[in-house]
């Protein structure tokens, strides 16, 4: 249930995103989902890819600061209140969300939400009990 996500430290420099995505492309790594959070000086790029280990090694050998972390992915109905009910389950259990990002499922009317929480196991437990559908690793990598 825990999905591997890459976090890459990126300086705010012209062409930097192009370089990173180019490295991934040349190594035949497919980006499944992406989010970037930036400050004035740098950003953190979060990536879900089809082959996280390979992507990590590739970026690391290109000299980047990169880390592989566990996140969880849930599938929620793509309608008003869909996200709110899932997040409520976590807040009721006092589980903090560090960050999250979402994208639509191209094949049906659900949306996927990737979230980073402090304790994945507790979150998975709470979400499962709350009736929220969790995505498996292979499901996400091959969306």
């Amino acid at each position, binding site marked *: 249930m825990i999905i591997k996500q890459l976090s890459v*430290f990126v*300086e705010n420099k012209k062409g930097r995103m192009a370089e990173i995505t180019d490295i991934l492309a040349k190594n035949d790594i497919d980006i499944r989902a992406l989010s970037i959070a930036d400050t004035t000086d*740098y950003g*953190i790029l979060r990536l879900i890819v089809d082959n996280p280990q390979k992507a990590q090694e590739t970026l690391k050998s290109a000299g*980047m*600061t*990169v*880390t592989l*972390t566990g996140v969880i992915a849930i599938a929620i109905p793509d309608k008003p209140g869909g996200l709110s009910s899932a997040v409520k389950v976590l807040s009721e259990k006092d589980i903090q969300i560090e960050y999250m990002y979402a994208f639509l499922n191209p094949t049906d009317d659900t949306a996927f939400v990737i979230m*980073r929480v402090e304790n994945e196991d507790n979150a998975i437990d709470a979400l499962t009990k709350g009736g929220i559908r969790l995505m498996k690793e292979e499901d996400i990598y091959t969306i």
Partner: protein
Amino acid sequence: MSRSDIKSLQLERLKRLVKYCYDNVPFYHKKLNMAGVLPEKIKTLSDIQYIPYTNKTDLRDNYPFGLFATPMKNIARIHASSGTTGKPTVVGYTKNDLENWAEMVARITTAAGASDETIVQIAFGYGMFTGALGLHYGLEKIGATVVPTSSGNTEKQLMFMRDFKTNALVATPSYALYMAECAKELGYPMSDYHLKLGILGSEGCTPEMRDQIEAAWGIFVTDNYGLSEICGPGMSGECHLRQGLHINEDHFICETIDPNTLEVLPSGSEGELVVTTLTKEAIPLLRYRTKDLTRITEEKCECGRTTARMDKIKGRSDDMLKIRGVNVFPSQVESALVGMDKIGPHYQLIVRREGFADTLEVKVELIDGSVLEKYSELEGITRSIKSRLRTILGLDAKVTLAEPKSLERFQGKAKRVLDLRNEK
């Protein structure tokens, strides 16, 4: 005084000084013995070349009073440098030293255009720093009205300036500019201010910045030079012609040397300024290496003064930076970063002038990805670097995280400083 009169006075005082140091300062006694330079060896002014140099480290190694030549009962005052590179350098003054110092400042401020008609606000920070009290007593000596406002509290400074009809300002160039900006914002017409003269110093000032200050205030600005180790302000200063800073040569012998070979350079060539204090009783210094780069000319100035003149300081022979009046060595930054977790050993310093103040940015490489999951951890890194820098430098710096290997690597001598202050 003719050049030859100046030189014979200098020789007489140099002989007396070397003997005085030899007899009263164990440090010099040992040093002169080791160099084989007994006081009798000084027969001409050029014999000064046999005397070993004194360095800032010698002052620091002998903290606090090790280089004093006279018992504490004769010391009338103590000043100290900010001590950003470890122990501060401490200097003492006897009553005569204070008298001479005031005399020297009186001369340079007179040359700059101050007189008993002058109402001068001293906006240097008072305290252990030599600047404020140095100018204070020198200006009092010429009969000026001294207003010791110290630095800060700019609105009040400006109120006094309007109400007292202050016509001269002692400040750092950047504070003088800042005050002008505040004066504009406050909205009183500039005709409410009566400033005519700026005696600015204690940090570098390019001709462009001087023009800017003059235009902002409608004043005439002169530069002066001194460093706390040799007395403070007053060693030299510009006259109204501003063709170099007149040196008080009856109190100092100034040489320029090649900082690498340590050879004395002929008059007129640029090199590191080396100063010998001829009259100081409390802490006399023989051939003190200032690390400041300048050029000295003995040509007579058109103002009529015959004293030698030095150029405005061109730079440093070491890598010291002066940022907002604080001395910063890149090695200090390095010592702040050593042992810090999650960042690499490379760093870069970027100094800029933003508005009226110098800013320091320190760039370091983030090498540990484990902190990317929590912004608080990332911020924690920059915060802890910042607080270490503040402790060591006494200065707030901006800390920027960079990607690994993004900072330039150097083969041989590293150039870690990017000083953009004089770039347009």
